[in-house]
């Protein structure tokens, strides 16, 4: 039998809980600081503006493109490579006096002078109003998701565990956002989708651990809450590693092979999965312990679990 983890006995995870919690707190604080100082590099979806993606027939000279973009309509344009040296992305801010199509026309005039066989691969324009609304809706979505989860987990488990899991999720979101802010990676709608997926994924992990904690509280009557948590984490450790591993594999595949348009999405997932795995072990469980979780809290839910007739669903 091939095994990744072959642990004899129980690992005392919570022994490291305090220093790790401090580390987490530092991460969260650091993220908030970068978010406050550097802010987020909001993508087109949220700021509004125009993006033109071009494919040149030979490696593009970005500086030449910048100098050629001289008209007033395209002032303040950001020119960068996108994926390969031949692909160029040009971002144009919203200008009151110019229409998006005028801006795109100016860009095309400028670049065809440099390379007559340049191909316009993609043009996106988002009005500033739409962008603002998307940003509001996005923020709302994350909040609603967290509240729904809080309600569901309280209903299925117990409020202390629910609070622990939501704290872990908030931790994941803040740290992932912090990394996006620190590296000034572009934050667009797909990244938001990635972030919400991370929420779902991280919760997945937390619930697996919590489920075992609940089970063990009922089984191991003589153990202290700390022991129960340690045992539960140890028991689910190999599952956590395997699932994280397979998910990471596909996310890395997306990151490397998925192309530039979902790069942001894959990046958010990649970071979120790391942070999420770690937080569901430490942040969620540790907080639940600190909130004074014990055996009595688990009793009423057991009745309900018995009620869920599992065998009926099997063929």
């Amino acid at each position, binding site marked *: 039998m091939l095994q990744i983890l072959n642990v004899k006995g129980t690992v005392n995870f919570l022994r490291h809980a305090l220093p790790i919690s401090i580390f987490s707190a530092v991460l969260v604080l650091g993220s908030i600081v970068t978010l406050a100082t550097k802010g987020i590099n909001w993508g087109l979806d949220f700021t509004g503006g125009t993006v033109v993606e071009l494919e040149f027939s030979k490696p593009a000279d970005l500086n030449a493109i910048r100098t050629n973009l001289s008209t007033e309509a395209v002032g303040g344009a950001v020119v960068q490579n996108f994926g390969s040296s031949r692909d160029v992305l040009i971002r144009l801010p919203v200008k009151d006096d110019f229409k998006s199509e005028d801006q795109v026309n100016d860009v095309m005039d400028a670049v065809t002078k440099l390379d007559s066989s340049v191909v316009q*691969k993609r043009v996106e324009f988002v*009005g500033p109003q739409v962008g603002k609304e998307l940003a509001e809706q996005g923020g709302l979505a994350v909040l*609603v998701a967290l509240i729904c989860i809080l309600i569901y987990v309280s209903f299925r488990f117990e409020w202390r565990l629910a609070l622990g899991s939501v704290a872990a999720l908030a931790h994941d979101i803040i740290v992932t956002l912090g990394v996006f802010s620190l590296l000034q990676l572009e934050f667009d709608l797909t990244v938001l*989708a990635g972030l919400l*997926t991370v929420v779902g994924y991280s919760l997945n992990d937390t619930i697996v651990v919590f489920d075992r904690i609940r089970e063990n509280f009922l089984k191991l009557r003589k153990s202290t809450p700390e022991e129960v948590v340690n045992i539960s984490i140890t028991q689910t450790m190999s599952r956590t590693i395997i699932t994280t591993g397979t998910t990471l594999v596909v996310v890395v595949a*997306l990151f*490397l092979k998925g192309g530039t348009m979902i790069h942001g*999405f894959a990046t958010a997932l990649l970071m979120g999965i790391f942070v999420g795995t770690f937080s569901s072990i430490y942040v969620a469980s540790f907080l639940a312990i600190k909130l004074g979780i014990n055996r009595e809290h688990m009793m009423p839910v057991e009745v309900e679990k018995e009620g869920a007739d599992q065998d009926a669903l099997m*063929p």
Partner: protein
Amino acid sequence: MVILIIAIGGFYAIPNLFGEDHAVQVVATRGAEVSASTLSTVNEVLKSKGIAVKRSELENGQLLVRLNNGEEQLVAKEIISDALGDKYTVALNLAPATPKWLEAMGGSPMKLGLDLRGGVHFLMEVDMGEALRKMSEAKVADFRTDLRAEKIRYAGIRNGAKGIEIKFRDAETLAKAENFLKSRSNDMVFVDKTVGDDYVLVANPSEAYLKQVKEEALQQNITTLRNRVNELGVAEPVVQRQGAERIIVELPGVQDTARAKEILSATASIEFHMVDQKADVQAAMSGRVPAGSELYQRRSGGPVVLKKAVMLTGDHIQGAQPSFDEYSRPQVSINLDAKGGSIFSNVTKDNIGNPMATLFIEYKDTGEKNADGSVKMKKIEEVISVATIQARLGRNFVITGLEHAEAQNLALLLRAGALIAPVYIVEERTIGPSLGAENIQNGMQAMIWGMAVVLIFMLVYYRGFGLIANLALTANLVMVVGVMSMIPGAVLTLPGIAGMVLTVGMAVDGNVLIYERIREELRNGRSVQQAIHEGYGNAFSTIADANITTFMTALILFAVGTGAVKGFAVTLMIGIATSMFTSIVGTRSIVNAIWGGKRVKKLSI
């Protein structure tokens, strides 16, 4: 049962294997009809030019001609377009090459989003401010005529900051006017705002009426845009409302956004002319048109000579509804704005008993460009109806002598002619076809790599049970594709492919949970059968809880996201549902079939 469900999923996934045919689509416009004779005309023309037709079919009033390759498709489009003339719109299309028998059973491949097939996406916003302004202007005119007719004297009516302000000289008239107006227009709310000697009555639209005005403006714009999009000759366009003030227009395959925009914002208009009864139609057709008149074609066919002088333009039309007269004959009731009403009443007074024609003018894209790069537009003028003036006409009148369907169409055209409120583009996304193909390729690559590594790992780590999990994983993917193909509204986008890839990584979680539990039970010294039972039983609630929460976030994402992100949420939700089924029920049935009821000493896990 399990096999049946997977088989159904698999069956509906099959159409995705066939790819697409290059095709040309023919749609009738302007009163023409696509019929079996059109079909045979097209087939003959193509045959005579030596182009092989793979299959041609007539469906839902559309003609679809499948060809062997892209080059022949372009040539065929030109040929068909020349042969049928401008009563038909001929468009290039990629038709799914699903075999007939499969199609008959409801099988069709997944629809691809714009980011995968290329095209333009517009989000247009209706200028509601303009719609409301027009509405209150009309109300001002209404009040004026109503009060005058009732002989209630007012000092002035104007559109003020607080609403429509009507001034009176004394409180008595104000009260009388208020009573009268309230009984006449129940869609307005009247408030007495008299200060000192300033007797002012303020009228504002009621909430319900405001909503109705906005709704009508939006609906009318959708109708107009839909008509124009149909004229564009795009295969499978989408025109759909989003929220209270916005309209989504998606044009797959269209690359030239400038052209698309010009057509969407192109104007159509209506003019009323008198018919020149003295003119000889035959003479006019051979070129001798009397001075001051012009020869036009009727939409229903046949020439008619109209006087050049325009009686009234369509800008004055505020509404047009199909209705029935007292003998239940179809008619179209038209109402004009105040200015239009007075012009019309003057002109019609002198023309009672004479026929009047409604001329529909539209600018249609020719597909060619002028020297300066702008799109060459062709002016198309058609007489849509000729009716005799029965009496002096005012602001409200009816056009009779129409068939039921004609009345419907005329009302639509009259309304569509002049937009109540202008639309402007607030979001635009254009994806080139090469980028679309690249996106599909990238997505598939990621899928293949991710899936391969996961499959190998599961096989090595769990051996026999790993193989079962891999079967479940493959079945899961097939089912996701099958369900996506079955749901009519589901669209595959690039994030959607990412969602599928992610499902592959996360779907094994169910199996990992179960298998780890079985191993644990075995370590604790349970028998093989007991371990399997315990493993599945204990893992179930965990898997359910974990999946339900992920499903909830996907649902929220679906509610908030637009276009591509919605696609991701959909695949994720479907993936969660199918993976729960395959990883719990699917693998259990295989396990039971192999090890069930037997005395097994050792498990391959």
